[in-house]
């Protein structure tokens, strides 16, 4: 029985890694191309946007909240930054770097507004971020008139399509983002407070923690990483596309959940969120390689999701 317990614990703690490993093994046997270096970089590249959004999502979910606006906030920031960089809509250009920085600031601001609604207005996170999703989408559509903004300077496109030392920029940014976030969560008091709030908000307050500030911080980070994801996506597509954000919200939440982050807060970690995102990336990539068309892919994705959550729930069951 003791053995069974440690085995369960092992399963629970490493279910995300095991599923990723399982996918790698399956796809490698089906097609040797899967494990090539080029393809692995491809997997990371395909994962990078969702994973960037999932970084901030992890902070929010650890506090027990949820951010439904990350996809739209990202797209919105991408479009506004593209406007500043190309002069579209504003009638003047600022140059790439000011545009990128303004894009990031806009993301942090939008995240901060959601956060303020939640900590000062006592809005449930679901509602506040749903509202923010609508607003961000509205701003994007009004600004772009529903049409792509093209003609980005190459320095802007570099952030999504360029590479340094053979590593694509999105992957590089993702690695830096995950390392920073991991450090924040495990080595700083802010990170400890994030976990504490997710465990029990009232108690965090009674322990002398400014729970509101910390929670607000989580939403600002979420807005910031959403903006980063949106900017990178804009660079990759070499244009701001107003209609590509639909799936990103749920994919970022799915990455967190596949990585074992609790929807009730207090449990989860950054590396596993990355693994969660990689599971989705590897799945999409592998299915493409073996020639599964994109509509059945959705069904298979759903089934893998069920398997992953079942594995987690079964291993957490108490005797």
């Amino acid at each position, binding site marked *: *029985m*003791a053995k*069974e*317990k440690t085995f369960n614990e092992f399963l629970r703690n490493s279910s995300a890694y095991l599923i990723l490993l399982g996918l790698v093994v399956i796809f490698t046997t089906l097609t040797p191309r899967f494990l090539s270096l080029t393809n692995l970089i491809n997997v990371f590249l395909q994962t990078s946007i969702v994973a960037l959004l999932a970084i901030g999502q992890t902070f929010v979910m650890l506090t027990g909240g949820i951010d439904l606006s990350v996809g739209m906030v990202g797209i919105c920031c991408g479009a506004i930054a593209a406007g500043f960089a190309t002069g579209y809509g504003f009638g003047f250009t600022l140059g790439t770097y000011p545009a990128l920085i303004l894009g990031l600031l806009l993301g942090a601001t939008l995240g901060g507004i959601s956060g303020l609604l939640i900590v000062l207005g006592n809005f449930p996170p679901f509602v506040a971020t749903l509202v923010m999703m609508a607003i961000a989408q509205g701003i994007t559509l009004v600004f772009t008139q529903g049409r792509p903004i093209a003609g980005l300077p190459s320095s802007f496109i570099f952030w999504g399509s360029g590479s340094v030392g053979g590593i694509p920029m999105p992957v590089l940014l993702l690695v830096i983002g995950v390392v920073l976030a991991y450090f924040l969560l495990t*080595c*700083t*008091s*802010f990170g*400890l*407070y994030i*976990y*504490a709030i997710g*465990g*029990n908000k*009232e*108690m*965090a*307050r*009674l*322990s*002398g*923690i*400014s729970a509101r500030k910390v929670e607000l911080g989580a939403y600002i980070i979420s807005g910031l990483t959403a903006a980063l994801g949106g900017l990178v996506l804009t660079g990759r597509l070499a244009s701001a596309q107003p209609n590509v954000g639909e799936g990103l919200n749920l994919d970022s939440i799915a990455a967190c959940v596949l990585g074992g982050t609790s929807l009730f807060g*207090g*449990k989860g970690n950054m590396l596993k969120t990355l693994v969660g995102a990689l599971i989705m990336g590897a799945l999409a990539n592998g299915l493409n390689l073996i020639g599964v068309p994109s509509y059945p892919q959705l069904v298979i994705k759903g089934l893998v999701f069920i398997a992953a959550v079942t594995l987690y729930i079964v291993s957490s069951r108490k*005797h």
Partner: protein
Amino acid sequence: MAENQVSLEMHGISKSFPGVQALKEVDLILHRGEILGLVGENGAGKSTLMNILTGILHSDTGIITLKGKPVNIENPRQAQIMGISIIHQELSVLPNLTVGQNVFLGREPRLPIHFLVDWKNLYYLAKEHFKKLNLDIDPHILLSELSVAQRQMVEVARALSFKADIVVMDEPTSTLTEMEVKNLFSLIHTLKEQGISIVFISHRLEEIFRIVDRVIVLRDGVLVGSAPISQVDPKQLVMMMVGRELKEMFPKESLPQKEKVLSVKNLKRGKDLKGVSFDLHRGEILGLAGLVGSGRTFVARAIFGADPLEEGEIWIEGKKVQIRSPQEAISYGISFLPEDRKAQGLFLKLPLSSNIAITDMKELSFLGIIIFKKLQELASSFVNKLKIRTPSIFQIVRNLSGGTQQKVVLAKWLALKPKVLILDEPTVGIDVATKAEIHALMNGLAKEGVAILMISSELPEVLGVSDRILVMHEGLISGEFLRQDATQDKIMLCATGGANNG
């Protein structure tokens, strides 16, 4: 006589969990209409035994016989059908439903059209049921409008509505005050007269001696004693539970000094606080007694900045201060251990070390980055100092026993080196040995000059530990006693408002 009829027999019950033998060959006999006390320290196996009886757990070996027939209790539902009901320590009633809905939840009487509930009949049945139990509660009101004690009564009523003839009560009194305990006990006597057998689990020995007919003692999963209550005295019982003699249940050695550390004047907040004033001195243990709902906890929360005050002044070491948040209270050297350690005292998913360190992160970090070496040193030093029994300082707190958890909460607040320590029910649900350790620790702190305000519903504890005792009634201080002048009767009189009225 009916009294001698055996209602339940558990024989040779053993149960092991990974790494622990929770029960070893335990026997238990329960007669009809008998009140059986089940005592033992935390982790002695009381809950495991009762969980086996009520079908929550299955024993590895052993036989259970009900009224002479061997039975196999697969699950809680089956236990209920066999007439065994349990009232858990944590209330499991639903506050957003009415009293009547709670009592018949899952078994609502139906109208001829089967999926419609016969509400009229439901409330009628609930009323009749309450009448039988001498309970004066309106089944129509929402449970959230009832006091904790009344909720407990509803839970008892619900348990009995299953036509139970065996009722297990797991620490039913831990959240009740003396008055409410009296009501519960008279209910228990009513049940006894109706031939219902009761297993009564409690850490409060004084209650065991008041209510039970016979007592059995578990220690480390082994049955170490069984005797009619008239044949044992408290000392013997404690010795059986602990396995050694405890010198004094409430050792007392501190001497309060004259210096005022904390003064509160005319604290007011709605119905909860109607003008509370008192002083707390260096090295003093001030007991705060009163019924649940008398405003004791609100005094503590007001001083700690957890609830805003409408009126009133707080003075720390002769200086008037404004405390608007727990953070500010902490900066003035005030620590507060809330009543419900699971809901308000501990981060259950975090390791022991983080739990202890979390109030003190300013000291333990540099530019927001945690200095892990310092954090671990702090945690280790408290593990040693408070004799916290844990495999490691990285143990997740959820997995520790109740007494150990309470020590972790204490450590968390002591890490701040408080001048004023407010303890709300510091020993609820904690076994005698750990309780004695916590009392000794409080004395030690008082000796070092810490001023302690202790809220407790357990009168022997208030009388044993405090230098001075305040009693609250309906948001006001209704009595004050020095240690040597206080008695249970005097305190109860003030707590129930008797002293004011006449």
